[in-house]
């Protein structure tokens, strides 16, 4: 990939309608259907999470950040993710990435219910999903804090001579943290196999990009580190697969990191308590026209890869999966009281070694 000229930071008003006729980048038609289904699953999972969080007798606690609207980013990455070699790390809006990498929706929902059957045994919550066997290095709660960790995972790959890469994700808010600068510099200085991906959903909690970043073309925040940088349409699954796939290949070949800005939009608030007074109804309506799931579904329909009936079946499948996940979470036990004291240290002390 060549260093691209900076392009205008696409706002939701200026983003073009995606090309319906675009070539499908999934490896097969079957894979394309799976990717669509995964995006539907994530959406259904998130919308159900919203219902469970807000219903009386709330069973999901703490802070909870929904991924609705950004599905194409996580699912596009999962299409190029090489399990067993690659890693992914992200921030607290982590449900979509975890599901896309293969987390059982039951373990994910149970974690939010704080149950012993959750992916982190009920000790992490919504913001801290981890799954080591899938290369999922977690959701991280402190904005930007995971950027050096992802860089370190890439360092470990290079050190061990494994041709993998670490997809290191963060939001547009995180680019203003100090460690963003430190990690980008280290990654490029040591040519580490990192793919940095800014999920630019245009607003850090309630602060729009233009009120937080002096440089509005966010991909340029990746300049000055001697690595390629570019922005792309994060709502177009095929574009995600293409752009992120190229950067991953580059990393795996030892050519170093790439800085990518996925322009996207979140349909829900920052977290559950967010009334979204900072954006208009019209803006949201316009954004809905670029719903990544509808865009991909239309493309697959028009190219004859799915029928309307396939699509309806998928919808009903994911609904059932999510229903079962909620049932599973709700009937799972809370952690035993002694679990408070486990999983803190790996060793027993006094330690003789």
């Amino acid at each position, binding site marked *: 990939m060549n260093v691209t000229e900076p392009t205008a930071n696409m706002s939701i008003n200026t983003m073009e309608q995606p090309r319906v006729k675009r070539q499908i980048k999934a490896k097969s038609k079957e894979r394309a259907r799976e990717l669509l289904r995964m995006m539907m699953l994530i959406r259904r999972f998130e919308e159900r999470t919203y219902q469970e969080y807000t219903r009386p007798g709330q069973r999901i606690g703490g802070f909870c950040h929904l991924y609705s609207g950004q599905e194409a980013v996580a699912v596009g990455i999962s299409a190029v993710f090489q399990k067993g070699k690659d*890693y992914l*790390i992200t921030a607290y809006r982590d449900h979509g990435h975890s599901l896309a990498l293969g987390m059982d929706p039951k373990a994910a929902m149970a974690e939010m219910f704080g149950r012993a059957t*959750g*992916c*982190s*045994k*009920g*000790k*992490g919550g919504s913001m*801290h999903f*981890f*799954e*080591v066997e899938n290369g999922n*290095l*977690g959701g*991280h*709660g*402190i904005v930007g*804090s*995971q*950027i*050096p*960790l*992802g*860089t*370190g*995972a*890439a*360092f*470990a*790959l290079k*050190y*061990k001579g494994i041709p993998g890469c*670490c997809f290191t994700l963060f939001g547009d808010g995180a680019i203003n943290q*100090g*460690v963003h*600068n*430190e*990690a980008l*510099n*280290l990654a490029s*200085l040591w040519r580490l196999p990192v793919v940095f991906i800014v999920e630019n959903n245009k607003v850090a909690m309630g602060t729009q990009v233009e009120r937080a970043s002096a440089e509005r073309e966010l991909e340029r925040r990746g300049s000055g580190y001697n690595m390629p940088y570019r922005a792309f349409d994060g709502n177009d699954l095929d574009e995600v697969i293409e752009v992120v796939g190229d950067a991953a290949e580059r990393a795996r070949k030892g050519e170093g990191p790439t800085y990518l800005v996925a322009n996207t939009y979140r349909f829900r608030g920052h977290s559950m308590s967010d009334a979204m007074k900072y954006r208009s109804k019209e803006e949201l309506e316009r954004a809905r026209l670029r719903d990544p799931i509808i865009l991909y579904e239309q493309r697959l329909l028009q190219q004859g890869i799915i029928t309307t009936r396939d699509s309806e079946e998928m919808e009903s499948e994911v609904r059932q999966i999510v229903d079962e996940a909620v049932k599973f979470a709700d009937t799972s036990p809370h952690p035993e009281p002694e679990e408070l004291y*486990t*999983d*803190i*240290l*790996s*060793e027993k*002390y*006094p*330690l*003789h*070694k």
Partner: protein
Amino acid sequence: MPEIQFREALRQAMVEEMERDETVFLMGEEVGEYNGAYKVSEGMLARFGPKRIIDTPISEAGFCGLGIGAAMCGLRPIVEFMSWSFSWVAIDQLVNNAANVRYMSGGQFRVPIVFRGGNGIAHQLGATHSHRMDAVYSRIPGLIVVAPSNPYDAKGLLKTSIRCDDPVIFLESEMMLNDRGEVPAEEYTLPLGVADVKRTGSDVTIISWSKCMKYALKAAEMLEAEDIDAEVIDLRTLRPLDEQTISQSIRKTHRCVIVDEDWPYCGMGAGILEKVYQHCFDDLDAPVKRVCSEDVPSPYNHYLELQMQPNPEKVVAAVKEVCYR
């Protein structure tokens, strides 16, 4: 037994563990081509090459986080802080990531990493470069905190720290690096979480660690002349604390003085004092006294800096007070 410097003991520990385990590497500011800001890593770049002795930019948060990520993925980094005072800018990485990631993931990750470097007041470095991080990190569940006082302990404890699967905060002192001590040529390790009674006595228990152990031992010598027989405990590990060794000693002596160079309020000594009262309140014949630094920022002026810190005379005075002498 060969007598070597404290810095050589640290170096021997790192070299031996790097030879033993390919996944161990050293990373930090000036550890390679400069041969170490304080020459702890002298010669290691020539021996192991740039893949394993890694000079970093001045990016403490960045390279600490990078080390933690690498540890989560199967490596065993040793991260050198030129000064522990610089860890303030990396504290989110140490506390939120190194210490928490195992718990937050329900035990899915191990974080085998050692952070090491000079801690505490050195010589006229002023308020920003003289921080004592003992209590800052010892209060964090998920971390191990080690603070040796002599070359023999330093080598044995650092070797175990490198083999340990938990994140270890290893506190040295620039003021101890030239200290010499006997270190056996043959391999040995020392346990983490075990204090060492450096001098036995029957009249009073002096608890200390790291640099202040010298003041405690010197004070014990001075107290002999006053016919006070002091027992001196070197904690060696601050977290987890060896409460048993402390309790056993106080049940024998019934009097206790805690010596450290941290600040008095919420300092490391305060945490230890709470444990002493918890376990030994009824065994004590006098309230415990603490000798610590004055409650002020570290000054530049040499004499003020000395005035701020503990010294043997202050320890002697405190011991006499708890002995009602």
